[in-house]
């Protein structure tokens, strides 16, 4: 069957010929088509299988709300499951596959589930797979997961780029239909910064699909004029292909821009998608309204479609969904479909109107009033409908309209509930304040003139409040379509299977069952029946479900209310959230000023926090980590080694009260530290537990250079800020991180002094000129200012040399050269760890947040002559108990085997404990 493309009209480029494939078969379509419209044009109505019963399904909607026509789009790493055929823009080379069928879409074995449908009611899984309990995880759940479910994700890496961006505006307009265009135009002309976004591939909203008349021209031509004017305004940003998916506190909106989803492959310089955070001073929701289905037997058979969708396919895509249509409606908008189809030359058999007193213009098409469709013939395409009075009418497509639901989602994302309106038979958006308001159909205004006026007024009010002076908009004259509706949720005379929620195969019988079993709260009923779950979140049938539940529970629709609306309005790919922060950009990489030097020498790097640190320096013939580490330790102990210690936190502490400040921060004394001297300091937390340690030097009476452990650098800085700002604001002290200013290297071992002597200017290094714990500014390499500290973590005769970071690599190379004659060896943090353990120095793994100074053997550092952070709490009973764990050194009696981290040591028979 082919030939569903109408002879003329539509926003498609008939001169273009795009080739695409669906389930391996090649088809062609035009620029401007969606995958759905192109498939229908090719006579393909069967596009998917349903979730539970594997029923054949076709297109139901024409946009974002589509629950049935979900496909796997693209191949390889670009494959994307559950993509709505109704929003996929057709491009040349597009490849799509149907989902949830085996062996093929046309013949799907899973359809036997339908035969057993009487047992597959809501709550079936919970009731059936209860026993034996142990079967759930291993047998039942995997079995159910295989049977149900839709498309599958790819296991390959996504080859495309994703980006993030921030946007700012005075007015964000969500939706570019008549209300949105008027809002953007009003605000844009007033000079406000406007962002107008729309999920569609082009701006215009409903004006792209409807036959309207505005300002004496077609709605489409009017929209084109407005869009052209908006495009000429520098203060207006137009963002088609962009979905506002969430509304957040502070009038921040999340939006997804599909930059390159409409091409085969993005340019290598451009992202596929861009994730926006938009900060809007004011926002207008002009998202329109979504048509509701009617629940009758076979309302899911391919060929049954929302009336507005059928109209959209005909008007915008020049595609007829069939050769002979029946329109089934409970309101006036069904007539628009009938008239538009007739005007396009599509035969409309009859309009079935559930209202006895309907009076809309049928343009000569027969109307059966006060009648309903009970059942559609089952199968892969509609062949006839049977009315409640058993009249049979042959047709191949059915348009249905059960009224309209304003798209209130974004206005409810912050928790407010929509409000039921009896006159409109719809939930209207809640009033959440002036920052974010609805206009047009999203606000329940179904007449075009109302929509245009509301859009203009909402924008004028919003930007007026921001100080702009919008001119009273001259509202264009337009033709209004009457809108009258009566509720019709469910045709109870139906015999065949009817669906309230298409994507989850929820039938109208499931909801009364939920009510009978005690789940009449809408939140519980949603979970029990799965109505309103999955990727479409019940955009179409939710209100039907609420109405049916209300009736079963003996309550009003207003009393039942809606479930909670949450982001995301439509699904967003994880890749968009990750943006560019994948692979080694997942977290920023931080390199030390000696990185290049270490890399040249073949260092193996390890991530410590964000830093890349050199762990060891293997020689070409060395394998594993142990051999190089042992060699590095030995070389340092016997000759001289050099190690990059630049990652230590470094904080400049200055001011008249700097000494007093440090004296209160450290548990040991710093007030009396001499200028030119370094001291090991230990900091406690307020609760008496050890916080951090490091060497701090006094460079001048009012100038200290503090070091912290690598891991705690930022925490110590925060702690200092708190102590200064909250505890002792009276102290005149200033501090700033200088971690990145200095390259710092340890030079250790018996030959450390002669090595350094070769690069030091003017000074002879000796125990007299440079005694243990000396800390002085010196000159090296013919005039470079450096700082030299005689301190040791390795236990050897050692120095730490600080030079400004840009010199780091060169100075390290100079030291290597100077130490060559002594056999200088670079060592990494593994060797450093070995040496500090051998000497009993504590480090990060002992400063674990559970140890006291005494536990670490540092109890005597706690001053008794002054107050300091942690002093009081450190004296608590449990903190000074005799039986606390303690850090001890262990030396093996033999050298056999080795101890691994976290090993337990057990006393053997006759062993005695000997504490050092």
């Amino acid at each position, binding site marked *: 069957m082919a030939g569903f493309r109408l002879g003329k009209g539509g926003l498609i480029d008939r001169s273009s010929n795009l080739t695409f494939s669906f389930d391996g078969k090649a088809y062609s379509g035009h620029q401007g088509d969606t995958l759905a419209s192109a498939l229908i044009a090719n006579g393909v109505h069967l596009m998917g299988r349903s979730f539970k019963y594997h029923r054949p399904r076709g297109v139901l909607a024409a946009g974002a709300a589509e629950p049935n026509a979900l496909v796997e789009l693209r191949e390889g790493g670009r494959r994307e499951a559950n993509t709505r055929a109704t929003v996929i823009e057709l491009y040349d080379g597009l490849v799509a596959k149907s989902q949830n069928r085996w062996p093929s879409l046309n013949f799907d074995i899973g359809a036997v589930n339908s035969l057993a449908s009487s047992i597959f009611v809501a709550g079936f899984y919970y009731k059936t797979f209860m026993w034996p309990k142990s079967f759930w995880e291993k047998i039942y759940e995997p079995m159910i997961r295989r049977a149900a479910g839709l498309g599958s994700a790819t296991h390959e890496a996504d080859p495309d780029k994703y980006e993030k961006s921030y946007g700012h505006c005075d007015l964000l307009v969500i939706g570019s239909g008549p209300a949105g265009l008027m809002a953007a135009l009003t605000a844009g002309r007033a000079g406000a910064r406007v962002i107008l976004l729309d999920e569609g591939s082009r701006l215009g909203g409903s004006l792209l699909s409807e036959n309207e008349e505005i300002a004496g021209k077609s709605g489409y031509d009017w929209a084109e004029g407005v869009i052209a004017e908006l495009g000429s305004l520098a203060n207006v940003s137009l963002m088609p292909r962009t979905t506002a998916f969430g509304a957040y506190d502070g009038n921040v909106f999340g939006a997804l821009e599909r930059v390159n989803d409409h091409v085969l492959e993005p340019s290598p310089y451009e992202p596929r998608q861009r994730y926006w955070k938009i900060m809007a001073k004011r926002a207008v929701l002009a998202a329109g309204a979504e048509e509701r289905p009617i629940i009758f037997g076979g309302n899911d058979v391919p060929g049954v479609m929302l009336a507005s969708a059928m109209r959209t396919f005909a008007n915008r895509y020049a595609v007829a969904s069939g050769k002979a249509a029946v329109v089934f409606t409970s309101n006036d908008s069904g007539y628009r479909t009938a008239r538009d189809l007739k005007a396009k030359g599509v035969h409309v058999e009859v309009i079935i109107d559930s209202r006895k007193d309907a009076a809309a213009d049928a343009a000569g098409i027969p109307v059966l009033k006060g009648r309903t469709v009970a059942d559609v013939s089952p199968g892969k395409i509609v062949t006839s409908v049977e009315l409640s009075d058993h009249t049979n009418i042959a047709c191949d497509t059915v348009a249905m309209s059960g009224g309209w639901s304003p798209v209130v989602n974004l206005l409810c994302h912050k928790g407010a509930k929509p409000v039921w309106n009896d006159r409109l038979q719809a939930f209207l958006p809640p009033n959440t304040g002036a920052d974010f308001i609805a206009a047009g159909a999203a606000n329940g205004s179904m007449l075009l003139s109302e929509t245009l006026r509301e859009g203009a007024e909402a924008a004028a009010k919003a930007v007026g409040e921001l100080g702009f002076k919008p001119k009273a908009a001259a509202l264009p004259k337009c033709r209004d379509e009457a809108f009258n509706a009566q509720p019709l949720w469910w045709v109870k005379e139906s015999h065949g299977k009817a669906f309230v929620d298409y994507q989850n195969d929820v039938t109208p019988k499931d909801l009364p069952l939920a009510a009978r079993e005690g789940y009449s709260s809408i939140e519980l009923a949603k979970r029990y029946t799965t109505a309103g779950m999955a990727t479409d979140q019940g955009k179409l049938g939710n209100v039907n479900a609420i109405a049916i539940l209300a009736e079963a529970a003996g309550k009003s629709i207003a009393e039942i209310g809606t479930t909670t609306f949450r982001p995301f309005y439509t699904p967003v790919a994880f890749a968009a959230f990750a943006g560019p922060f994948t692979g080694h950009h997942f977290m920023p990489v931080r390199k030390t000023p000696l990185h290049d030097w270490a890399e040249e020498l073949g260092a193996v790097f390890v991530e410590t926090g964000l830093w890349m640190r050199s762990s060891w320096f293997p020689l070409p013939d060395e394998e594993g980590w142990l051999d190089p580490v042992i060699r590095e330790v030995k070389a340092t102990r016997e000759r001289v080694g050099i190690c990059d210690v630049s990652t230590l936190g470094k904080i400049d502490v200055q001011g008249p009260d700097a000494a007093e400040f440090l004296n209160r921060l450290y548990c040991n004394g710093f007030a009396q530290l001499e200028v030119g001297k370094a001291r090991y300091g230990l900091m406690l937390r307020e609760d008496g537990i050890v916080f951090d340690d490091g060497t701090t030097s006094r460079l001048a009476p009012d100038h200290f250079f503090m070091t912290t452990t690598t891991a705690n650098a930022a925490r110590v800085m925060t702690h200092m800020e708190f102590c200064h700002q909250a505890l002792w604001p009276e102290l005149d002290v200033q501090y700033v991180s200088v971690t990145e200013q200095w390259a710092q290297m340890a030079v250790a071992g018996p030959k450390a002094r002669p090595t350094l002597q070769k690069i030091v200017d003017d000074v002879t290094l000796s125990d007299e000129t440079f005694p243990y714990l000396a800390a002085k500014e010196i000159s090296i390499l*013919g005039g470079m200012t450096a700082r030299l500290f005689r301190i040791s973590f390795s236990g050897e005769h050692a120095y730490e040399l600080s030079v400004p970071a840009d010199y780091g690599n060169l100075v390290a190379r100079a030291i290597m050269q100077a130490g060559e004659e002594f056999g200088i060896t670079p060592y990494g943090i593994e060797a450093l760890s070995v040496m500090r353990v051998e000497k009993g120095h504590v480090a990060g793994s002992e400063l674990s947040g559970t140890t006291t100074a005494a536990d670490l053997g540092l109890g005597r550092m706690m001053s008794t002559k002054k107050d300091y952070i942690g002093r009081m709490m450190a004296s608590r009973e449990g903190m000074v108990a005799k039986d606390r764990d303690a850090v001890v050194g262990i030396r093996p009696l033999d050298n056999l085997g080795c101890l691994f981290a976290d090993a337990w040591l057990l006393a053997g028979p006759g062993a005695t404990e000997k504490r050092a």
Partner: protein
Amino acid sequence: MPKSVIQRVSVLADVAVQGRFGADKGPPGVTLSVRHPMSIVTIIARKDQSAALSKAIEAAYKCPLPGIGESTGKNSISFHWCGPDQYYAIAQGKADGELYRDVKAKLNGLASCSDQSHGRVILRIAGPKARALLAKGTPVDLHPSVFGPGKSAATQMAHVGVHLVQTASDEFELSVFRGFAENFWEWLTEQAEEFGYQVL
């Protein structure tokens, strides 16, 4: 004091190579350059000395201290607000340590000064797409009606702390910690690809 034979090497020396990259249609949307070598000093007012510090700066450098979120001065020396009573003094064309010693001497008793010349890397971003590029990283609104030359902000881009200064109508400078500079450069240039960029 003899001049050291060792020259400063920018952390981006091998990374920020000159040339035209990314989309190659039309003129580049942005130009990127590394300002190096620079002199940077953190100045923090001592207790109750804010007013005196301001006067001393004005007297010494003929340039007022900037207000909150602002910058003052020119290439020879500029001052940038970076926190309550905290500023960066930035200068080009000075010998290593010269600015630090000069500022420290002139502000003796009024402020604590720390040399950061090697600790931060300054990148200049200019061109018609500079704002669009920066919007991919910073939540700060850089629209001319809000921001502009003489404004500065402490912000975060690509998970890294950034000090951002607008230096001319389409020109911005970012400073980041030296250790993050290479990673930041990779991110920045990838984001600039769609506009086409020129590294000067």
